């Protein structure tokens, strides 16, 4: 069975802890994205799975077997590197065939397999060329072909699309997803691009400072972020996180001071558990409705900067107390710089985070 399981995996480099107590399981056929800012430990986690780094603590289980002490060549995994890592002195065809030399496969079978994956990834015409004679996109596909040419326990991808231009990235995203769906292997993809994670993954693990902050489906991490970090990391434009002072909560409505304005906002019932005090309110830019007249449920602010984004327009607004608020409105809604806005947050999309940044949700 093609599965990956990390049990309380910790990796330390000297006194620096790169990965801390990571628990993660990837089922057969599942694609899990490790997502996080640079230096969050996602690549180290991947290298630990691959065996390129040894674990300091915990267990790496691949296909039901503890692999902690096995070198990478004994783990039967396939990996696509960020910089492709094609063998410079071998042709593309030889590159793709390279993993097959160890499995005792006949020459005819080898050629057949190389030709098959080359056809899947449209590489037939470059098989005889050297890696430095092909385009960036072809290198990416060649690296991919080398990974899928045999039948490994699992697939690992390290920032697979980061070196492609925008157009190519979109088409490759689709291609990778398609290829992976046909293979039903446990797959881990490391990326710092949330769009890549949201589109390709079955589940996303968001990492920060060596810890996994949340694991969930793309929908879950977007709609129900576990904490303020995940909330701000997922979604573009970024979620607005506003410091607030919670006063009372009754009948599903929280009375609070946000950026110096007293507001009554409908929130999740679990907010009742909170003691009055500092909280953070999270509202996505698309979850505001601009109304003509202000009331106790709206935040008043002034438009400072307008960024048309095509179908929508991003407005940077500022409250009287100086808090920045990003609002996305449809193209048809004309807003001018300096215009006063009354912004009503959608109660179903208003997140409350407690003093420690943890989401308060029932």
């Amino acid at each position: 069975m093609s599965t990956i399981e990390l049990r309380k995996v910790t990796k330390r480099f000297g006194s620096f802890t790169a990965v801390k107590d990571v628990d993660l399981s990837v089922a057969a056929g599942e694609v899990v994205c490790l997502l996080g800012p640079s230096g969050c430990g996602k690549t180290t986690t991947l290298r630990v799975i691959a065996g390129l780094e040894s674990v300091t603590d915990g267990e790496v289980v691949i296909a039901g077997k503890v692999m902690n002490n096995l070198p990478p060549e004994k783990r039967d995994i396939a990996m696509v590197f960020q910089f492709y890592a094609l063998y410079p002195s071998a042709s593309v065809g030889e590159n793709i065939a390279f993993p097959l030399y160890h499995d005792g496969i006949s020459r005819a079978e080898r050629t057949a397999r190389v030709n098959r994956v080359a056809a899947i990834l449209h590489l037939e015409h470059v098989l005889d060329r050297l890696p430095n004679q092909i385009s960036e996109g072809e290198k990416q596909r060649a690296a991919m072909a080398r990974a899928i040419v045999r039948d490994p326990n699992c697939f690992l991808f390290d920032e697979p699309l980061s070196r492609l231009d925008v157009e190519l990235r979109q088409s490759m995203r689709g291609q990778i997803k398609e290829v992976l769906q046909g293979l039903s292997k446990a797959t881990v993809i490391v990326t710092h691009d949330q769009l890549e994670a949201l589109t390709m993954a079955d589940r996303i693990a968001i990492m920060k400072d060596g810890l996994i902050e949340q694991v969930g489906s793309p929908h879950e991490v977007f709609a129900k972020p576990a904490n303020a970090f995940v909330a701000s990391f997922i979604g573009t434009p970024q979620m607005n996180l506003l410091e607030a002072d919670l006063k009372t909560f009754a009948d599903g409505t929280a009375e609070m001071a946000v950026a110096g304005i007293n507001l009554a906002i409908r929130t999740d019932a679990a907010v009742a558990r909170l003691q009055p005090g500092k909280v953070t309110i999270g509202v996505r830019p698309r979850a505001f409705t601009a109304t003509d007249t202000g009331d106790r449920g709206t935040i008043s602010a002034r438009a400072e900067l307008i960024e048309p984004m095509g179908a929508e327009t991003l407005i940077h607004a500022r409250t009287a107390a100086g808090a920045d608020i990003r609002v996305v409105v449809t193209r048809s809604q004309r807003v001018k710089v300096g215009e006063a806005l009354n912004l009503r947050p959608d109660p179903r999309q208003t997140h409350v985070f407690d003093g420690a940044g943890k989401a308060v949700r029932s």
Partner: protein
Amino acid sequence: MAESILGKLGFGRASGVDKAGWGRTLAVAVVAFIYFLPVLFIIFTAFKPQGDALLVPPTLSPTSLFGLIPDHFVFKPTLENFGSVFSRSMTPDGAPEATGFDRYFFNSIFIASASVLLALVIGTLAAFGFSRYPLKGNDTYLFIILTTRMLPAIVVIIPVILMFRVVGLSGSYLGIIMLYTAFNLAFTIWMMKSFFDELSPDVEDAARIDGSSGMRVFFKICLPQVIAGLAATFVFGLILTWNEFLFALLLSGPDTRTVPVAMNQAVSSGGRGTDWTLLAAIETLFLVPVFLVTFFLQNHLLRGVTFGTVKR
């Protein structure tokens, strides 16, 4: 064949001239000619009749270039000197005797290639070790390796002679080959380490994930990427070893004498003063092997290392 040799010499590569222009190309050609002049002079001298060597003004050309060069600068080329290298009369009226130079040429080729190749094999493995599996105090060891090359040979020779005396290696092939190997090792390790350091670790990681053992990674992945480095190291090592004089003079015996040593003895023996045309003929012959090796490896030397697949 003619075409490929011309190509190797840089002719027919129009783009080179196109980019720099004829003016600069010509300027470089002039400088290169000045560099080559001493070698050319020696080669010409090797073909001069014995009496011509010390003429003032010297004869300069074996041909008048269709009347372009005045007659008194032209000499009549002869192969006589090359014959004398291997066989000549040692006394004014004596019969020609074998000089043993065939043996000395064999010695030079055997000793130089054996020690350079040996150093290349050992040094490349060591360099890979230093590059991939650093020891505690890695740089210190690298530094120590180089210390024997920091001193003038004349200083190092004294302890070396004593060491050779004690173990009885003086005058043997084994001794001189070991010595040259040791000297070439320092150079080889430093050169090859820098080449290995430049390789992308990702490529090796990929090979290991693809199922290769450490050995296979080294031979199949790393080594092919440093061929240019191996060629450069080989050529430089060969030139240094080929021309080495002092150690060979003091540590080789009559059977293991190399050409530089024999050359010295050939021209200074007999008390008749220096036979310049003979010396030039030996030098010309001596030049041929290194010239050929360098010539055929120069494509590798010039190509540099391809770091094409991994961009930083």
